[in-house]
């Protein structure tokens, strides 16, 4: 059973998984890790006003996202799901646009990507997943909704209400909690009563699964099982992936004020990318050369995305007035003229 404190369990195994799956997991996780590093640098250089790192949570995100069918299922992310977006096939230049503050939700096509807009309201999108899933059932389709949220969000009313609704309706939802143990400056023991989020599942009439969030294979397997259950019409599942937020909450946070570095150091040694790399070698799914090639490809992809988002044009002032309504109003047109005369000047 995974422990809050890093048990120092230095290795994982992927012997039981197909080689092309583990290689795909590694490719996405490696790309997300490099893109995360580039993004922090972009913030340092003033290209991003701020950035929220996913470092350390790549296995929880890629492991779960790859268990979905991108053509039938739908993901409801928060604002810290870059690695999941990468694995789900979202256009990453348009995804990172939200971190460059070009458009709040990002510039990717949410409907076509089947990946919700970047959402900064904690717990906000979770009830959306329940609605979408009930909508699938009403139409007789078999898509599954996966809602990401964190240990902090697990305290929000929206999340409790959603899990109860999903239990009542037997909706095909996977509630995926990335418990990275820190909600900004508040640790689990001051956030999560009872010490476990997955244990609450029984109260909402669904199975609860606690999984080692840094073991990409284990996360994938647990999510695949939950998705299959939902697709068979057997209702929702709550998965708690125990991992750790190694970077500060955001690039302008100062963790020195609220947590000790030793804990972070221990979790840095359980790096999910390293764990998977070693497991792939051990299982013979790939050799050093193949992984070196994967590393090079990932770095190149991360840099392509970095340069794409850094060079993307800033929004034009006229876009203030686009998409407010689908059927616009005279009043908005009048205000757009005021903007043109008085602001564009």
């Amino acid at each position: 059973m995974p422990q809050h404190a890093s048990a120092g369990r230095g290795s994982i195994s992927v012997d039981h998984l197909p080689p092309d799956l583990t290689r795909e997991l590694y490719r996405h996780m490696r790309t997300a890790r490099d893109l995360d590093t580039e993004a922090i640098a972009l913030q340092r250089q003033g290209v991003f006003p701020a950035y929220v790192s996913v470092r350390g949570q790549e296995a929880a995100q890629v492991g779960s996202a790859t268990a979905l069918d991108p053509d039938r299922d739908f993901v409801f992310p928060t604002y810290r799901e870059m690695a999941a977006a990468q694995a789900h096939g979202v256009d990453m230049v348009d995804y990172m646009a939200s971190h460059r503050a070009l458009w709040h939700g990002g510039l990717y096509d949410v409907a076509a990507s089947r990946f919700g807009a970047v959402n900064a309201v904690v717990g906000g999108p979770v009830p959306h997943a329940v609605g979408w899933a009930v909508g699938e059932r009403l139409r007789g389709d078999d898509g599954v909704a996966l809602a990401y949220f964190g240990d902090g969000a697990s305290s929000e009313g929206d999340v409790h209400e959603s899990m109860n609704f999903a239990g009542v309706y037997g909706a095909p939802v996977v509630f995926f909690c990335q418990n990275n143990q820190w909600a900004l400056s508040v640790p689990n023991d001051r956030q999560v009563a009872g010490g476990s989020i997955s244990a609450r599942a029984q109260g909402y009439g669904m199975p609860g699964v606690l999984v080692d969030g840094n073991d990409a294979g284990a996360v994938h397997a647990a999510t695949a099982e939950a998705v299959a259950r939902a697709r068979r019409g057997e209702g929702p599942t709550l998965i708690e992936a125990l991992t750790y937020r190694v970077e500060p909450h955001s690039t302008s946070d100062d963790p020195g004020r609220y947590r000790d570095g030793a804990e972070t150091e221990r979790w840095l040694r359980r790096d999910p990318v390293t764990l998977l790399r070693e497991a792939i070698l051990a299982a013979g799914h790939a050799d050093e050369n193949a992984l070196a090639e994967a590393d090079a490809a990932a770095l190149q992809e991360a840099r392509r995305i970095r340069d794409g988002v850094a060079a993307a044009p800033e929004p034009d002032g006229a876009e203030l007035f686009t998409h407010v309504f689908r059927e616009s109003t005279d009043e908005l047109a009048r205000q757009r003229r005021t903007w043109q005369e008085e602001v564009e000047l």
Partner: protein
Amino acid sequence: MTELIEHTTGTATGPTVELSMQQALNRALRTLLAEDGDTLVLGEDVGALGGVFRVTDGLQKEFGADRVFDTPLAESAIMGMSVGLAMNGWRPVPELQFDGFAYPAVDQIVNQVARMNYRTRGAVPMPITLRLPSFGGIQAPEHHGESLEALFAHTPGLKVAVPSDPGEAYRLLLQSVRCDDPVVFMEPKARYWDRRPVELSEPADPIGTSRVVRPGRHGTLIAWGAMVHRCLQVAELAAEDGVDLEVLDLRWLTPLDTDGLAASVRRTKRAVVVHEAPLTAGLGAEVATRVTDACFGDLAAPVQRVTGFDVPYPAGPLEPQYLPSVDRVLLAVQRTLEY
């Protein structure tokens, strides 16, 4: 550029020290926690972290984790718990971390906090001050730059205060927390780092009074929060054209200082209301109506409003084109001069 004239009508003189607004608020909370053992400070990250804007920095260390404590991340429960604490004799000062995150707590604020005294015929007062970092101007992510004053000012049973500089922040927060009615205390986060000499004096004006920040003859700019500074800039530029504008800081959005507004506009004959929130049903409409009712005969032109547009609050790069600019306010003033 001439020095901006700041009139503080406080009489009691306290020590003068240079502080930023965040520090002035921190000082006020220290004063309040020290003078009344029933006062509590609670919210997300207000303890060890000292608040995301450091307004509660050092309070937990000085007054202990029983009186200054973090809550789990749930806005509705924070306000609901504050109702219960108040019902049990405490004086809670909850913080909701950002304006845009207050919505889940609006049910508790409107249906419980604002009406409890009324529902219980005075038996159960709600001496709660909700501190809410508000408004835009720091190119923050979505939901971190909203202006909710019209919603709270429209709620019977609530008082709404908005400081525009460190001295005001110190006095208004003292006044709000000591008041036995619930106050929504909206802090203009764009001004958190504005440093200037602060007279740590006791509040002298009753709740609901505005203040003239810059006297003038040709028109009155009416604003609150960060827009007071913007209007001082406008007045500075107008002076170069020989136009002498008065700047009036409302301070209280409810109760509104109708007499103060009328006294100013009767003299200057023209009025422009400036706020960050969108135009339609913004608080500017209420202020304009009050001025028109009180000064119809004296007005040389209809009251103008310069506000955000009726669009969702934009991402950082577009913020300067959304917020009232110096030129847009000058154009409104010119409309009143040419009318």
